[in-house]
């Protein structure tokens, strides 16, 4: 019974964290893009003018976190004439659901000991979590494809086709990056991958994967951003060509769900990068019993288990939020690819590099027996 409660709590907490992070990212995207483009950005809505009376600047938090969602979810739910009603309604959720379930296998910390209970800070422990991630990403294509098709609109259909083609093309590069990571660590278990990255090299350098697999990191970052269909890879919703691509005919809540999917994918890519290349929940020099600082004297700071767990969770989310912010900054820095450039970049650029990287990784592992 207690296991069930703990499991449910873990699942709810991780989903809520991700959903709330999508909202914060939306705020960051709007306000950040305004800063980059020398605009002011969202600064109107306020709750009874409380902030202004206190002399605080309006940061647009009320706008993006309260007013916009309220507006979106109370708007008319428009379904175009001749649309496939069932699939049109299903599509946004078919897009969001696979992305949200991937977070079930994401470890946000090591173990937390409360009394006699040892809680693995991971909603679901799965031996083949990496395969599970790829499977969920594969299914997430359907939401976009069907959303485009069911709208009975040429622009939507073109956007849906583009999204599908782009996602299955870049899934290949993503899969190759995954494979070399798996070969390096020798396991598909995400919690195990994080544990392997603990410890130090040369007495001070944290054993993070980025130092061993830099090419995979670049591949995963690029292919992941393409997978989340963000600028510079946002040809499925290129507004100058396709109105808004596959969600042209969506309004209100369903459109918000599509938007949430985009940001959830951004979070997912950031989480994957953190897990595979930046130690996941590892804090440099923090071990099971406390900090072992590097240096000639080797200072040691003993910490209780709960403090270590909190530090690990904070570390994980700091890294994740950093990479989310990084992706959003990239979005407002680079121009969009043309469609043929996108396909060439995927098939003739990333895939060969990924194959080569996988071959080199496998060769090194076989020749030197280099279990990480």
């Amino acid at each position, binding site marked *: 019974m207690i296991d069930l409660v703990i499991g449910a709590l873990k699942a709810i907490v991780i989903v809520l964290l991700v959903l709330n992070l999508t909202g914060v990212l939306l705020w960051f995207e709007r306000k950040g893009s305004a800063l980059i483009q020398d605009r002011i950005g969202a600064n109107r809505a306020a709750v009874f003018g409380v902030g202004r009376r206190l002399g605080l600047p309006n940061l647009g938090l009320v706008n993006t976190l309260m007013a916009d969602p309220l507006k979106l979810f109370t708007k008319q739910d428009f379904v175009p004439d001749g649309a496939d009603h069932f699939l049109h309604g299903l599509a946004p959720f078919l897009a969001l659901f696979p992305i949200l379930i991937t977070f079930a296998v994401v470890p946000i910390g090591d173990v937390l000991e409360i009394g006699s209970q040892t809680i693995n800070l991971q909603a679901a422990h799965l*031996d*083949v979590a990496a*395969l599970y991630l*790829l499977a969920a*990403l594969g*299914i997430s294509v359907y939401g976009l494809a069907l959303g485009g*098709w069911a709208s009975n609109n040429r622009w939507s259909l073109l956007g849906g*086709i583009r999204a*599908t083609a782009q996602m*299955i093309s870049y899934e290949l590069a993503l899969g190759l990056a995954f494979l070399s990571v798996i070969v390096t660590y020798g396991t598909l278990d995400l919690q195990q991958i994080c544990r392997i990255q603990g410890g130090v090299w040369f007495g001070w350098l944290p054993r993070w994967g980025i130092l061993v697999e830099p090419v995979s990191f670049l591949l995963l970052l690029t292919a992941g951003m393409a997978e989340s269909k963000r600028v510079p890879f946002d040809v499925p919703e290129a507004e100058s060509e396709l109105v808004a691509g596959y969600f042209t005919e969506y309004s209100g809540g369903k459109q918000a769900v599509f938007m949430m999917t985009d940001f959830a994918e951004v979070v997912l890519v950031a989480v994957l990068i953190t897990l595979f290349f930046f130690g996941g929940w590892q804090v440099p020099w923090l071990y099971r019993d406390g900090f072992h600082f590097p240096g000639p004297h080797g200072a040691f700071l003993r910490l209780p288990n709960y403090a270590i767990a909190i530090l690990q969770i904070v570390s994980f989310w700091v890294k994740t939020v950093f990479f989310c912010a990084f992706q959003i900054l990239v979005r407002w820095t680079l121009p969009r690819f043309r469609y043929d450039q996108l396909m060439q970049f995927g098939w003739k650029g990333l895939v060969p590099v990924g194959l080569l990287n996988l071959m080199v990784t496998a060769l090194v592992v076989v020749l030197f027996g280099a279990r990480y």
Partner: protein
Amino acid sequence: MPMWLFFFLAALAVIAAFGVILQRNPVHCLLGLAVNLLDMGVVFIGLGAVTVGFLQIIIYVGAIMVLFLFVIWLLNLQAEGLSGYLGLKFFGAIGAAALAAELAVIFLQAAPISRLVAAPPTQGSIASLGRSLFSDYLIAFEATSVLLLAAVVGAIGLARRISSSADQAERSGAGQTSLPDQRTAPFGGASRAVDRDDQIPTSIPAPATNDSARRERRSA
């Protein structure tokens, strides 16, 4: 996997399979097939073949069904009725009857299912899968790889031949005759427009006045 879950998934698989053959719209049929394959993957996972189950979902649901979707879109397949393809249906019915008979025989002879036995955890793991693929089934595995490679090369060859012949046609100037719809449309359209301009003043009056009209124009 508990028994009720297995029967739920089995029922879902059968319903989805019926959806594949009973729907009129090809996209709906495809979705039925995708649900069916996803369901089979879940059954695999539940019975202990975890790796195979996930691979089934990644490959069939995540890639092959999406390509089917593409083909349906690009060929612009529309919803169709129950008429047509009589030959196909005839042989299909024979095949289905044979399969049904086979299933019936198996059902009648097999012992009833009393409980589900999952494979031991070592058997479904990716390590055991790799070991058996590269030791017991090495030749079959390599033969399949060669077959897939041949198919890939063949696909590229087919795609290349069309584009190179189109290039040649363009270079030799024969494109205008070989692809009438696309290549000559601008020229044909333009000449037709000119014809029509000529014809508008001459074709509206009766044939008798036609000659007089021409004469008028010549004199002018």
